[in-house]
């Protein structure tokens, strides 16, 4: 057990920090500090292409696909320095963290050739099509249908249905879609995992405005939407397995970058408390200390996950991580507002647009819902982690 980084690691950290800070002070200074996912998408795509040009786009990937095959320590360091430098989150997060690794793990060589270089280069932005309006938490209740047809002599998948909560679909190029390809199948059986180009007549995207006034999420409608037969990952009917594999990638190194974003939020709260005198309130002091403790425990929990040698086994730290950070962040949003007082409820301009902390307060209410509600997380922990009986599925 060892927490410290080696001298070589620290040199790598300095290299990362130098380059990132240089970029944020130079050509890309206009996007420094952006926290809202929907802000400046075009400039951010350019930024992600710049990352790729300097081989910083996906350092954990194999070198042949644009990565550096970086060690865990280096991935940790890069993620931390990325956030510390105030660089905005990746608009192609889904492509780099989920779609790419899924294609690496389950794709054909042709698919790897077709997608990985463009994802790595920031040229293909992916979004994900899992949830459906009737099945928010119940991922297996997929109703979107896919069927294979011969069109002009070519086999094509024809997709009909609706996805929801497709984050950033409106600025994405591709979407991966879990759909039901076996007529009459139920639950996790008979599902298929497809990659579809968004810019086609059969796909329509409508933004969903959230309670913070922003519109990160979308409804995505499929009406005889099409993709070639070779857009299929795995075999028809293997969609559930692929999707579950993909979700496991969510517990990767990117969590550390996410945490650095949290660090920035907490630091902003601390600065606000010092500025307005809330820092002398013993109740606020306790809550800030708790937030500080919680953030560190997330960090060390993530390092425990990442230090696991046997990655096939999801251990306690990994099982509990989602609810841990979501609950922590929701409490952070409430702390932020209590530090700000009524001033936090008033925006600067005439638009219904919020600064980091009030926005955190509003947005964090979604953290405990998307990606599996806190209730679903507790089920998973009790059932997979502690061997309790599963919640019975009904037949309504």
């Amino acid at each position: 057990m060892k927490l410290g980084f080696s001298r070589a690691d620290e040199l790598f950290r300095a290299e990362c920090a130098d380059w990132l800070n240089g970029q944020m002070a130079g050509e890309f200074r206009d996007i420094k500090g952006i926290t809202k996912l929907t802000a400046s998408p075009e400039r951010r795509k350019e930024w992600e292409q710049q990352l790729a040009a300097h081989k910083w786009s996906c350092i954990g990937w194999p070198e042949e696909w644009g990565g550096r095959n970086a060690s865990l320590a280096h991935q940790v360091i890069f993620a931390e320095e990325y956030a510390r430098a105030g660089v905005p989150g990746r608009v192609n997060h889904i492509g780099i963290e989920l779609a790419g690794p899924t294609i690496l793990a389950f794709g054909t060589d042709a698919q790897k050739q077709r997608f990985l270089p463009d994802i790595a280069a920031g040229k293909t932005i992916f979004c994900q099509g899992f949830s459906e309006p009737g099945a928010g938490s119940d991922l297996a209740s997929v109703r979107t249908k896919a069927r294979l047809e011969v069109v002009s002599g070519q086999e094509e998948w024809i997709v009909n249905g609706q996805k929801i909560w497709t984050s950033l679909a409106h600025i994405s190029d591709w979407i991966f879609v879990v759909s039901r390809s076996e007529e009459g199948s139920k639950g996790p059986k008979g599902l298929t995992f497809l990659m579809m180009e968004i810019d086609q007549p059969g796909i329509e995207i409508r933004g969903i405005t959230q309670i913070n006034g922003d519109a990160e999420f979308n409804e995505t409608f499929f009406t005889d939407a099409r993709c070639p037969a070779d857009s299929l990952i795995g075999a028809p009917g293997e969609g559930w397995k692929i999707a579950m594999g993909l979700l496991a990638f969510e517990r990767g190194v990117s969590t550390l970058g996410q945490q650095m974003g949290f660090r920035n939020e907490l630091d902003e709260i601390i600065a606000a408390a010092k500025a307005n005198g809330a820092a002398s309130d013993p109740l606020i002091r306790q809550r800030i200390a708790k937030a500080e403790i919680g953030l560190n425990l997330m960090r060390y929990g993530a390092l425990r996950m990442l230090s696991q040698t046997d990655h096939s086994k999801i251990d306690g730290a990994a099982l509990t991580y989602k609810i841990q950070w979501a609950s922590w962040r929701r409490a952070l949003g409430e702390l932020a507002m209590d530090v700000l007082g009524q001033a936090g409820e008033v925006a600067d301009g005439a638009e219904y647009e919020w600064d980091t902390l009030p926005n955190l307060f509003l947005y964090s209410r979604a953290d405990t819902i998307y990606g599996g509600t806190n209730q679903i997380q507790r089920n998973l922990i009790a059932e997979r982690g502690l061997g309790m009986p599963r919640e019975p599925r009904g037949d309504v």
Partner: protein
Amino acid sequence: MEFAFTDEQAMIAETARAFFTENATSERTRKAMAADGIDHALWTAFCQELGLSGIGIPENAGGAGLGLVELAIIAEAAGAQVAALPMLGSLAMAAQAIAAGGSAEQQAEWLPRLLSGEVIAGYVHDAALTADGNALTGADQFVAHGAAAQVFVVTSNTGAWIIPADAAGVTVTACTTMDQTRPYARVALSGAAAAPLADAASAIAAAHRAGFVTVAAEALGGAQAALDRTVGYAKERVQFGRVIGSFQAYKHRLADMMIEIEQARSAVYWAACAVDEGSDEAELAVHSAKSFAADTYFMCAGNMIQLHGGIGFTWEHDAHLYFKRARALQSMLGSGNWHRERIASMILGDAA
């Protein structure tokens, strides 16, 4: 000793509930949110057609008599719909201050117009206000519906005045506010000449007690509505082949809401009754009610979002109206911690 509504109170509750349910619809509220945060037609109808706007104001001051219990009943019903109305500032605080501390002339001049809804008043409080004679200098950053008010009752910790919004030295700046059903305005006074209320101490006490109780009652109504709407959703929404209300964890969350709400209900009507009866417990009760009910509302509105899942987080669904109102009620007129510290001082003496 009878801690239940009289028949008359039950009737007022029924009338108010029916009125707000029918008229304070989400659609109308959203229109008001996009404008100045007031559904003016609703306010006029409430004041002039329903005939409940004079409740809590003595009959000799042009009101309908009755007391804070009845005012709480109305605020609860309005809160249940997150109605976009200036009830808190104009009726519960400004009109109460004038009724309790204004001269007969001041009452005659202002109360009929406030109760008819013809004029909207805002309540401005600045503990650090300076008064050079009756020329006031100071500011309140968070005057509820302040940009829609034509007149302000202004208080410091010791003085109380009335001043028209268009008087010289008064600057009103509307603010983009998280709860769009009750936008704040910044009201700045710069040597503004105001008319002093005859009995400032009574005016301040009445406004604050009525304000605390009204906020608490609104919170109670909002919390109950958050529970009711979530219960409705729980019976309809199916996940994993079951209505989600059949999941025990979901049920228990609903139960926790009800446990808090029932206590908030006791708190609100205890406080209203204690003030009306001039009980020794009145101060303890109003601080209890404001802090407890607002916290209950926030908990319930947060649960409303959580228990609706993704849809509860959209602008289109009403959950965020409740959530934002709940947050506003927590932070306005003193935080929960502030009110509890007041109670601690009563029990334990001042903090060292």
